[in-house]
C-alpha cells in the first residue's frame, strides 16, 4: 500500500522481496508469496505471532534458507545462489550465538579477520565499535562471563563492525527482562540513527515494533497482513487480525445502510469510510477512543451501556461494558479526580458511550 514515509527513498530499496515462497518438508508453508521493499536507512520491523514466517523471512535474507520461488534483492543485487558469507548483510541472532571459545574482542574481530584486513585496522575498528556500544572494558572477557545485556551488545558490535548494508535482527531482546529491554530499545534506535544502517527487525512484541520502527509489517500464516507506519497500522488496521494483534480492539459487525451509515447490534452508526449499502462489514475501534459520560453529550454514535467490570492498571482505568448483547472495552486515562471532565464510574452504573465516526475503522467486509 502506498504510504507516506518520513524518509524519502534514495536509490534502490535496501531490501526487495518479490513473491517469495518457502515450503518446509513439502507441506508446511512458511512463506506464501511475500513481497515487500525496505528503504535504505529504514528501521523496518517484521511483527507477528510465532510461526507466522517472520523468522524464515529473515533467514532467507541472511542466506540460511533458500526460497522455493520468488526473488530476493539486497542493495539492488539479486541474491540467488549467493551464500551467507558473500552477502552484504549481518545478523544479530536470537540467542546471540557468540563464539564461546573466543573473547569479546576476537568475537567482534571475526568478520574483519575473515576479510583479511590488516590486524592494525582490525584493532582500530573493533575498539571503536566496542566503544560505541559501551563495552570497551569487557574486551578480554569470554561470553560465559557476560550478562544477557552485555552479550547482546557484543552480538550487535560483532555484526555492525562489518558495516553491513542491512542489519538483520532476530528477536534480539527476547531473552532479556523488561527493564533491560526498554534500555536496549533506546540504545538500538540511537545506534541506527548514528550509523544510518538499514535495520530489519523481527519481533513478536507489538509494543517494541510500534516504538522502534519507521515502518513495519504484520505477518500471519506466511503472508503479510499489512505494511505501513506504526501509527497507521495502529489507528487504521485493515484486517481484524491486525486490529487485535496490535493492542486491544473492539470489533463490531454490521450491514451498511447508506455509504456512511451502518446497522450494528449497537444500533445505526455513522462512519467516515465509504460503504456499499447492503454489504456486511466488520468495524474496529480502539478502547481509548471510546468516550464515556454520565449524561448524553449529543454527539453522533452514542449508545447506552452498563459497567460490568473495572480493571485498574495504574495509568488508566479499563471498563468492561455491556451494550445490548455486545461487550465493549474502554480505557480512560487516570487523571486527577478534580480535572474538569474527568469522571470515574462505578460497577453496574449506566453510562453513555460515544464511538467517534473518525475512529471507527473498517477492518473487514
Amino acid at each position, binding site marked *: 500500500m502506498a504510504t507516506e514515509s518520513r524518509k524519502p527513498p534514495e536509490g534502490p530499496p535496501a531490501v526487495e522481496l518479490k513473491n517469495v515462497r518457502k515450503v518446509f518438508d513439502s507441506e508446511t508453508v512458511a512463506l506464501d508469496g511475500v513481497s515487500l521493499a525496505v528503504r535504505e536507512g529504514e528501521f523496518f520491523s517484521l511483527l507477528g505471532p510465532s510461526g507466522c514466517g517472520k523468522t524464515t523471512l529473515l533467514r532467507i535474507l*541472511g542466506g*540460511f534458507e533458500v526460497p522455493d520461488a520468488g526473488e530476493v534483492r539486497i542493495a539492488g543485487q539479486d541474491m540467488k545462489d549467493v551464500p*551467507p*558469507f558473500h552477502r552484504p548483510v549481518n*545478523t544479530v*541472532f536470537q*540467542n546471540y550465538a557468540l563464539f564461546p*571459545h573466543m573473547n569479546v574482542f576476537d568475537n567482534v574481530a571475526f568478520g574483519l579477520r575473515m*576479510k583479511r584486513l590488516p590486524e592494525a585496522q582490525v584493532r582500530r575498528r573493533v575498539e571503536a565499535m566496542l566503544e560505541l556500544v559501551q563495552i570497551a572494558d569487557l574486551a578480554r572477557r569470554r561470553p560465559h562471563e557476560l550478562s544477557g545485556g552485555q552479550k547482546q551488545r557484543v552480538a550487535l558490535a560483532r*555484526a555492525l563492525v562489518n558495516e553491513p548494508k542491512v542489519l538483520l535482527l532476530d528477536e534480539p531482546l527476547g531473552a532479556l527482562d523488561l527493564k533491560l529491554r526498554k534500555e536496549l530499545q533506546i540504545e538500538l534506535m540511537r545506534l541506527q540513527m548514528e550509523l544510518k544502517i538499514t535495520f530489519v527487525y523481527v519481533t513478536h512484541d507489538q509494543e517494541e515494533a510500534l516504538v522502534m520502527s519507521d515502518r513495519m509489517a504484520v505477518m500471519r500464516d506466511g503472508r503479510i497482513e499489512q505494511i505501513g507506519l506504526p501509527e497507521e497500522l495502529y489507528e487504521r488496521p485493515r484486517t481484524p487480525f491486525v486490529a487485535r494483534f496490535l493492542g486491544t480492539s473492539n470489533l463490531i459487525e454490521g450491514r451498511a445502510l447508506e455509504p456512511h451509515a451502518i446497522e450494528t447490534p449497537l444500533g445505526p452508526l455513522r462512519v467516515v469510510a465509504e460503504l456499499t449499502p447492503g454489504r456486511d462489514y466488520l468495524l474496529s475501534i480502539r478502547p481509548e477512543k471510546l468516550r464515556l459520560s454520565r449524561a448524553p453529550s449529543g454527539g453522533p454514535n452514542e449508545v447506552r451501556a452498563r459497567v460490568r467490570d473495572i480493571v485498574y492498571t495504574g495509568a488508566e482505568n479499563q471498563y468492561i461494558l455491556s451494550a445490548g448483547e455486545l461487550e465493549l472495552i474502554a480505557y480512560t486515562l487516570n487523571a486527577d479526580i478534580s480535572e474538569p471532565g474527568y469522571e470515574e464510574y462505578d460497577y453496574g452504573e449506566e453510562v453513555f458511550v460515544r464511538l467517534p465516526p473518525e475512529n471507527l475503522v473498517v477492518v473487514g467486509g
Partner: protein
Amino acid sequence: MRLLLRIHTLLVLLFLYLPIAVIVVLSFNQSRFGVQWRGFTTAWYEKLFNNPRIALYAENTLVVAVVSTLIATVLGTLLAVGLYRYRFRGKGLLRFLLYVPVVIPDIVMGVALLLFFAWVREATGFFRLSLFTIILGHVTFQLAYVALVVKSRLASLDPALEEAAADLGAGGFATFRYVTLPLIWPGVLAGALLAFSLSLDDFVITFFTAGPGSTTLPLYIFGSVKRGVTPEIHALSSILIAASMAGVLLGRALLRRR
C-alpha cells in the same frame, strides 16, 4: 541391604582384579611351571627385554594403533561434521550404519575384511595382508566410534554458531577451522583416545587381517598361549596391563583438565 550391596561390590571387584593380580604376581615367580611361589625374580622381564622379536611386535602394535587412530580421527570427525551439517538422501541409513560396527560381533567384521582384502588382492595384486591391512581393518571400526563421540559433542553445539560464522564472512572451511573444530575439540580428543585404546585392545580384527611379518603383541600372545603358558607371557602381559592402566589414567587426567 546396604551391607549386602557392599559385600557384593567387594566380591565383584575381587573377581575383576583376581586374574590381573594372578598374572602380575606370577610374572615375578621363579618357578617356570605351575603356580607355586618359589621366590621373587625379574628374570622373565630381562628375558623379555632381550628378545628382539618382542620389540618388533611392540613396534608393530604401536604403529598400527597410532596410524589407524590418526586416520580414524580425521575421517571420523569429518564424517560426523558432514552428518551434522548437510542434509542428503540416505542420511538416516548412514546414521544407523554408524552404530553397526559398534555392536556387530567382531568376528563378522574380521571375516568380511579378510574376504574383501583377498578379493582386492586377486583383482589388483594389491593389499597383501600386512600392517597396512591391519590398519585399514582397525580404521573401519574406530571410524564409527570416533564419529559417534564427535557426533554427541556436535549435538550439544548451538547450530546458530556455524550460521553466525557464515554470516560474518567465513566459508565452509573457515567455519570448520575457526569455529566448529575448536568447539568440538574435546570430543575429537576423547574419540581419538577411545580409538587408540580400542586398537590396542583389539585381537579379533587383527587376527583376520594380519599377514606374515605383521605380528602384533596380542597375536604373539595368542600364538604362545596355544602352545602353553609361560612366565615370559606373564611378564609381557603385566607390562601391557601397566601400560594400558597408565594410559587410561593419563587420558582421563588430560580430558578433565579441559
